[in-house]
């Protein structure tokens, strides 16, 4: 028994303390180094942030270059697939165009009417914002965390918390900014919580990512009469995001209300980052 216990302790010691013939570091030394690095994450000093930012910029660019071969293959597959779908898409596009023509006429009428009413109430244009278009540098699929790395950072005036749009649709917010790159936390991530407005009922709620393609609607008013198909927009109550940015549509699954996003978060190539602050925020 004693011998057996000795064997185990010798094996543990050998595994963690002994260096192999070609090993330069022992496992224990590297684990301690990792713990020290993890503790440094809690320290927020200017010089450390500079080093972090530089390291991240270099790693992101390396990752982008390393991903070129696999991305090229994926792109070829997508192109071939697209060619097969061209005719079908043409038919859909034709019918949609007809619908849009009709809607355009209605919108023009509403716009004129809206401008007239605005003049009456002397309202400012709250939706007038500046945005910067940027490329998605790295989109590493992770089943646990949903984020993408963007091609621009401090150099383009990006700051933490800025909203990110895919076309007109809200897809996330910036959570990390480096000099040449930044990270966007997508709305599908478990750690994403965004105040939203549900129309036409006008309900306010919190949209929480669930790590999947849908997001959960929480903190709905008591005795609400929410229906599937209602539209979800940013509410702007947090003072960070502009109000009225479309996000998705309400879906009812297993007695829970979810939001199906308008944008396909797995297909982000170019996004717009809103660099101006909403009126009324500091």
């Amino acid at each position, binding site marked *: 028994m004693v011998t057996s216990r000795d064997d185990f302790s010798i094996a543990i010691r050998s595994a963690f303390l002994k260096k192999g013939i070609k*090993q*330069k570091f022992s496992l224990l030394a590297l*684990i301690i180094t990792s713990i020290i690095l*993890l503790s440094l994450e809690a320290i927020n000093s200017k010089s450390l942030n500079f080093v972090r930012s530089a390291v991240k910029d270099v790693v992101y660019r390396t*990752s982008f270059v390393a991903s070129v071969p696999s991305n090229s293959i994926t792109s070829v597959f997508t192109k071939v697939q697209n060619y097969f779908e061209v005719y079908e898409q043409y038919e859909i596009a034709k019918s949609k165009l007809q619908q849009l023509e009709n809607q355009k006429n209605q919108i023009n009428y509403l716009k004129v009417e809206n401008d007239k009413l605005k003049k009456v109430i002397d309202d400012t244009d709250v939706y007038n914002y500046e945005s910067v278009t940027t490329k998605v540098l790295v989109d590493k699929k992770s*089943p646990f965390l949903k984020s993408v790395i963007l091609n621009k950072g401090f150099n383009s005036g990006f700051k933490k918390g800025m909203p990110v749009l895919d076309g007109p649709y809200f897809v996330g917010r910036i959570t990390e900014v480096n000099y040449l790159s930044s990270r966007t936390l997508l709305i599908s991530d*478990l750690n994403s919580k965004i105040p939203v407005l549900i129309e036409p009922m006008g309900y306010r709620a919190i949209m929480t990512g669930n790590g999947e393609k849908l997001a959960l609607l929480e903190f709905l008013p008591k005795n609400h009469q929410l229906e599937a198909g209602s539209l979800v927009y940013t509410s702007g109550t947090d003072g960070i995001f502009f109000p009225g940015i479309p996000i998705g549509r309400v879906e009812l699954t297993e007695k829970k209300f979810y939001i199906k996003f308008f944008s396909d978060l797995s297909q982000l190539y170019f996004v717009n980052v809103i660099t101006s602050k909403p009126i009324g925020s500091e």
Partner: protein
Amino acid sequence: MFLFRKKFARRFFSLIPLFILFYLVCSETDFNFEKLSFLSFNLIYIVIFYWVLKNPDILGYGFIFLAGIVNDVIIGLPIGVSSITYLVLAGFAAYVRYLTVAPSLIYDWIVFVPSIAVTNSVYFYILRIFFDIEVNYIALALNASITILLYPIIGILFNFLSKIIIVRKNV
């Protein structure tokens, strides 16, 4: 010339595991499928466990540590989380290597189960308790299960590579 070619071929084959490890952490290519999330698995864990167990000189601990750092930067995790998890897994593999007299793929596979369970627990607790980052533990558990199931298949492929490296070394 023959000696040079022999040396080059041996070096080339022995660098393949290291190349796979760094390619997986650096590039967007991994085996986390968005549409077939139930089939996602972690090839990095298999690479680390297999090669530390079979031939630790091919996959140095320093490289495993570095791969963890790169992975953290790209995934957006606090720097050091993946390094610790990878090194814990490497620790398990090294421990088993020192204990095992007659290695076999089945035995390695059985040991891989608790190793992955502990490694993923370390990963989950560091993120959840120390950094308050929410992690989809169902996806994590599913990913671990598929990784465990695929270990023997990928292990057989690595066995071929391992044999080539040994043969080249002995030529």
